[in-house]
């Protein structure tokens, strides 16, 4: 399984905080995103927004980053701390 987390306004927009996804057939983070959008078409504009940040195992990565069973993946809006 892959654990997928959503934060802040992205979580509010999706109405979802986390979801578990079977790992088979998923290669990259972009593919995982496609899988999520296929299951929830109304997530598409939010998850595919240019501004969305991605993390795998708590490190910022690009959409081409591979995801594997056991990974913790996060989709995040631009950060606004400080």
């Amino acid at each position: 399984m892959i654990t997928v987390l959503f934060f802040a306004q992205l979580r509010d927009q999706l109405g979802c905080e986390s979801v578990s996804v079977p790992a088979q057939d998923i290669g990259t983070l972009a593919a995982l995103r496609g899988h999520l959008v296929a299951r929830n078409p109304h997530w598409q504009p939010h998850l595919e927004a240019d501004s969305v940040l991605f993390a795998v195992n708590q490190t910022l990565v690009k959409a081409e980053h591979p995801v594997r069973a056991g990974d913790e993946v996060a989709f995040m809006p631009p950060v606004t701390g400080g």
Partner: protein
Amino acid sequence: MSEISVQVDRFDAGQEYAALIADDTDGGAAVFFVGRVRARSEGRQVTGLTVEHYPGMTEQALERIVQEARQRWPLQRVRVVHRVGALALGEPIVFVGALSAHRAAAFSAAEFIMDYLKTHAPFWKKERTPEGDVWVNARDSDQQAAQRW
């Protein structure tokens, strides 16, 4: 004292400064930054804010930023404190302190840490306003500030 703290509790900037310089006689230059909840934000009246974060990743991101600053400048000590949860008007949100033998290094390190924290650490602010809660928008100027380094 750890270099990094992500905490709900309010901190005292004076105490953070005192801890940063305690028992040190080599750091001739101390720079500290405090970010505070302010009453106006992009034209909105703000009565407080809530800071959300990504527990675990936050600490890792801050560690990475501090290590990067230490590689770039000679620093005696560094301290980063960021609060999460509900904050009232005027309360401190973030403290960054940098102690170095020379002021240029202390200034640069503190500003670098803030610029990177603003763009690389998973915190999100939601402002309380008379019209309801509003997520803060990321600003292009923060991206540009981080790209200078």
